């Protein structure tokens, strides 16, 4: 009777046996599930902003992107492409289709269309808010494949995990951060991956794919210039190090020619791609590669080395001469435009400070501080050199690429804060190599030892066992313990990284900056929603054709949320126009009114943080208004506003400062206000001083609206007095 329990068990055991996965399948299963989890993780970690605030568009530029996407979905692609926007840069207007990178908007509109085709009636805003996280998730997949291509699947997985939560990337891709960078980093990494794949395989198909990846990148972000300079540089390095191959020739030529033709289809780029100085390196390398190939062919045909040497000399001299003359002629005739200021400021960090105040005035264009490197990369910062070591140890075409990408982008990240974003994928990949290689070495050590103990009695037959035996013999004392300790150390570091990233994401990078949150006296959360209060007031209670003058930072937000015409906005294409606004803000009221009348201004909007202690307000930005205004109009002299070389607003301030329009508009009737207990009325909490001019009278302007926390103040320009 005891057989009874055995018999029915038999088929069940068989069943389990047949379901038992092979090692390879197990590995595949684990890998795919890790990737899926990383994909989801990358998405949900970016939703902190939605949880903390709401599903909304963040910051400044995203509002323009959102507005154009809305226009695209409502009016179709052709209207969008030919859109002349009357609502910005009054009275100049802006040709939107020709002055933007449409990749982001088209992507979002496409997702929107697809969802609607599948009958998911989502709002375009939700699509826009979630575009960046969605593309960040896709980037993790690309990082996996890239890591797999340059090292192995392990490194790929680690790279995917690292990039999924790296703060340097999250800062630009949280939900609501609907900016070009959101999709551009995906496009950038994807293009690089495809190009490396093309170089590794020499396949025309991969090269073609990388050309299309490049096209997408060009359509999405001005940072494509980085690709079109890095890839030629990489090709050049391969040429110099003697790694030239037919694979490289195929990959680069196809990518460059097709990529160029495709990129020229974007109206904002157009013929710049063959004419401007930034793109000349790629063209030069393209011709160089042809010369190289030609020489290779001649060398193959000529058996006589002496003859070849002579030929080489002549050809190289001719090629260099022709190239130099062409470049010189192009530059002289103006056919090839010189490098733009932005490009210069990248190569020379001090350039912008001296020559282009408008670039220097943007906080994200400042040189990066060490702390922000630490903040954005955390442990990756010292894993990066370790990864470089591993790359150099196993040098190949692919690792050379990642090393070059890492080093150049790290340099740029040092020059400008916002370019940390570009460096992030490279840093993650190189660090992933370090982590993966280290952990792999350690685990091999551990596993071999364990196996040695286990199978010590049985005879080892397979080759792997033999090698493990050999390793075992070489091993030093305490190696196993050391390996365990190191593994724990690595685990500790990585877990620290994860907690750091989560903390940074939730605390620092999830604020929409439109809605400000502060801790109240009792620890409760206080929300300052003044920006939207003001914009919505503009939208509802001013004439539809009213023109609003404000500093350019708020231009996009006013047009998108307030739906009113602005004089200048964040697309800083016309320096003179911005300087005019800067001049009006820094002049006396009766001078300013002339400028405002000439610009048809109906309302003036200023941002003021004196009541709440909000520090990025217009008074703190005032030095840039003076500098930019003074850069074009010499009437404005910066020293007039300075006392001992600094801007002050208290009693010791310069008289011009105390009476300029900006000061008056910010502090109008502020002198009566008690802001803080125990301080005199008119105490400015943002700057911590009592203001110098408390008796402000406005002659040509009147207060039209001030938000509940005084952050935004709107003034109406009075019509001219009737003449009797």
């Amino acid at each position, binding site marked *: 009777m*005891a*057989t009874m329990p*055995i018999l029915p068990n*038999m088929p069940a055991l*068989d069943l389990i*046996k047949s379901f038992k996965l*092979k*090692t*390879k399948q197990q590995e595949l299963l684990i890998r795919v599930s890790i990737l899926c989890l990383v994909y989801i993780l990358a998405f949900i970690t970016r939703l902190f902003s939605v949880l903390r605030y*709401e599903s*909304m568009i963040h910051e400044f530029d995203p509002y323009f992107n959102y507005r154009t996407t809305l226009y695209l979905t409502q009016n179709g692609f052709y209207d969008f492409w030919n859109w002349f926007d009357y609502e910005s840069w009054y009275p100049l207007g802006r040709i939107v289709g020709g002055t933007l990178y449409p990749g982001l908007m088209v992507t979002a509109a496409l997702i929107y269309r697809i969802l609607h085709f*599948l*009958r*998911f*009636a989502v709002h375009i805003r939700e699509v826009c808010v979630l575009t960046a996280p969605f593309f960040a998730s896709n980037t993790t997949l690309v990082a996996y494949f890239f890591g797999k291509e340059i090292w192995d699947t392990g490194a790929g997985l680690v790279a995917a995990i690292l990039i999924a939560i790296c703060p340097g990337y999250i800062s630009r891709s949280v939900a609501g951060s609907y900016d070009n960078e959101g999709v551009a980093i995906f496009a950038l990494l994807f293009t690089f991956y495809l190009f490396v794949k093309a170089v590794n395989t020499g396949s025309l198909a991969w090269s073609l794919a990388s050309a299309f990846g490049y096209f997408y990148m060009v359509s999405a972000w001005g940072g494509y210039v980085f690709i079109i300079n890095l890839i030629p540089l990489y090709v050049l390095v391969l040429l110099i190090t003697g790694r030239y191959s037919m694979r490289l020739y195929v990959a680069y030529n196809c990518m460059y020619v097709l990529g160029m033709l495709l990129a020229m289809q974007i109206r904002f780029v157009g013929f710049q791609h063959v004419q401007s100085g930034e793109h000349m390196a790629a063209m030069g390398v393209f011709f160089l590669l042809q010369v190289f190939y030609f020489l290779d062919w001649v060398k193959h045909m000529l058996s006589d080395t002496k003859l070849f040497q002579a030929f080489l000399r002549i050809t190289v001299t001719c090629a260099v001469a022709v190239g130099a003359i062409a470049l010189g002629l192009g530059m002289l005739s103006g056919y090839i435009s010189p490098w733009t200021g932005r490009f210069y400021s990248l190569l020379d960090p001090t350039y912008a400070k001296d020559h282009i105040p408008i670039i220097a005035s943007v906080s994200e264009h400042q040189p990066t501080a060490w702390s922000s490197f630490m903040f954005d990369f955390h442990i990756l910062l010292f894993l990066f050199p370790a990864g470089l070591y591993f790359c150099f140890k196993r040098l190949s075409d692919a690792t050379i690429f990642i090393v070059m990408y890492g080093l150049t982008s790290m340099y740029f990240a040092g020059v400008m804060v916002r370019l940390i974003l570009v460096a992030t994928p490279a840093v993650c990949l190189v660090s992933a190599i370090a982590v993966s290689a280290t952990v792999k070495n350690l685990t091999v050590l551990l596993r071999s030892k364990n196996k040695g103990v286990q199978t010590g009695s*049985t005879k080892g*037959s*397979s080759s792997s066992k033999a090698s493990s035996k050999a390793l075992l013999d070489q091993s030093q004392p305490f190696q196993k313990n050391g390996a365990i300790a190191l593994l724990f150390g690595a685990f500790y570091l990585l877990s620290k990284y994860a907690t750091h990233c989560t903390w940074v994401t939730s605390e620092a990078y999830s604020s929409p900056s439109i*809605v400000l949150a502060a801790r109240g006296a009792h620890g409760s959360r206080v*929300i300052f*929603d003044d920006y*939207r*209060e003001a*914009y*919505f*007031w503009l*939208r*509802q*209670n001013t004439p539809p054709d009213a023109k609003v003058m404000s500093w350019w930072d708020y231009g996009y937000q006013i047009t998108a*949320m307030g739906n009113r015409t602005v004089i200048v906005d964040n697309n800083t294409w016309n320096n003179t126009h911005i300087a005019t606004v800067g001049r009006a803000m820094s002049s006396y009221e009766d001078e300013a009114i002339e400028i405002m009348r000439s610009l048809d201004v109906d309302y003036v909007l200023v941002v003021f943080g004196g009541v709440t202690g909000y520090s990025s307000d217009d008074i703190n930005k005032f030095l840039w208004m003076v500098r930019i205004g003074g850069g074009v109009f010499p009437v404005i002299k910066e020293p007039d506003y300075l006392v001992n070389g600094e801007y002050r607003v208290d009693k010791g301030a310069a008289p011009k400062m105390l009476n300029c329009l900006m000061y008056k508009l910010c502090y109008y*009737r502020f002198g*009566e*206000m008690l802001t803080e207990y125990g301080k005199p009325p008119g105490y400015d909490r943002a700057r911590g001083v009592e203001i110098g001019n408390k008796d402000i009278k406005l002659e040509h302007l*009147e*207060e*039209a*609206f*001030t*938000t*509940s926390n*005084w952050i935004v103040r709107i003034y109406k320009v009075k019509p001219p007095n009737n003449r009797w």
Partner: protein
Amino acid sequence: MAISRYVLLVFTIAMLASTAISDPILTKVNRHVENPGPLIMSEVLLAFPELQSKNLAYLTASSHETKGKPKGSVVSLPIKAVNLDDRPSAATFYSVLLPKEVAAGESFTLDVLAVFTHALRPVPEQITQADIQLVLYRDSVYYLSPYEVKVQSLSVKLPDSKIESYTKLESTKVHGSEIKYGPYENLPPFSLSPITFHFESNLPFAVAQELVREIEISHWGNVQVTEHYKLIHGGAKSKGEFSRRDFQARPNDRGASAFSFLVAHLPARARSVYYRDLIGNISTSHLRVDSRKSELVIEPRYPMLGGWKTAFTIGYGLPLQDFLYESEENRFLNMTFGSPMIELVIDTLIVKVVLPEGSSGISAAAPFPIKQWQETKISHLDIGGRPVVVLEKTNVVPEHNQYFQVYYKFSGLSMLREPLMLISGFLFVFAACIGYMHADTSISKSSASYLAKQQWEEVQVLIQKVQNVINRCLAMHDNLEASLRDLSRTGDVQACKAARKSADGLLKELSKEMKPLLTSLQAYSSAAQILPKVEELVAKERELQEKVMLKHSTAVEGYERKSGARDIDHRVALLQQKITALKQEVDDLLQFIDDI
């Protein structure tokens, strides 16, 4: 109309109240009707001058049959608009059908409630922040009536005792905010005498220029109500500066006519309430929930000064069972018509009831005349769109907050439509994936790499088959072992022998199966490096097989000879050791081949 030709003695008290709600004017008319004439009277005519009739939002009449009855027995009477040719065109007439005919000499009391909107005109039209808002109201001191009036008096209740001016007649008395006129006696029909009141009013003049209420029914248990408001402050327009400083420091003095919050009385059990506008969530709102009602206090983004506009949306979900009544396939929705904000006058109210896809036989009923039509709305996972009943009414006041019904037919099976669609969608995706994995997408069928790949696949299939055979062999070995164990327990030698015989036959068959597989494997060039391993595997397995057979036969023999268990074990032990080693090797080889 024959009736009015006879002299009717009508005793009327008119009461005008400008109540807490600023804009609408409530007029309550208490009429005592006596029928003196020889005829039986069955209806009463109400007249409104043109000035008022275009503002008339709501009109209801109720009756007390006799004076002694308590107020509880109020019956509202049917009213219809009538067009009288022989009457002055400047007046509009409504006829009230009496509950029972009033014979000559009998009397009858009628209560008429009329609500007017936009009847208060701000004078001056524009005020600064510091000014007080004054409004002007015009009416007639005599109640406009097509009948002769016996006695009439009028009392006017104003919101505040601060009265700028009012028409003074000989019989006027003022008590605080109340002004009394009359009584007047024996007035001829259609007598009019204009009076005006100019008084202070700082009550919120909240006017919704347009309100779209969308009520979406989901049979999964939710009624989602979304209300889009376009609000304006309908009082005196604000001019000049708006000083936040003054408004914050002295809100009662500077900007007294402004209102900064509204209260919405949502139905009980309202959930997931939100308050937002075009540019995002509005954080200034409070929700108070208790078991009987939910009260939502909303503040617009900015205080509403005279003439300022705002627009916002509130939305909430309600439990379906509180509002939907069903019997089999017939269902009807029973909901209130107007806005949950009771201080609001609505110029145009559009109520859209979105029924689930697949509803039919749709009709709507409301207690007052209403414009209605149907449209369709495409929402999540719809194919043809959901039917929408649209009801439109202008000049809506809180008195219109009455129940309306939408009747429709809906089969419960239609509820499964959307889940099924989702399931089939996923099914399709998976099927497409499977199809893609099995499809041959190569374009050059003759290229070397393609052929090599194809060959390799064939090799893999063959190896899979080999592995199968080996696994079956191994299973057979396990069977033999099991039979040995049975033997030791039951001592049934014959059964054990039979098991060996059958196993022997099967194993032979299996080795026969194996042969063609190996020969065909040899034919492939790409199998070159795996072939030695496979052959080794087969050889080892053969060896293992022999050993197992040997062990089996030895054990059985020992059993037949009745040797002791220990003796058998001893004899088998050596074999057993070999078998274990071989089994290990076979397993290793299988693993190795797996990993290739």
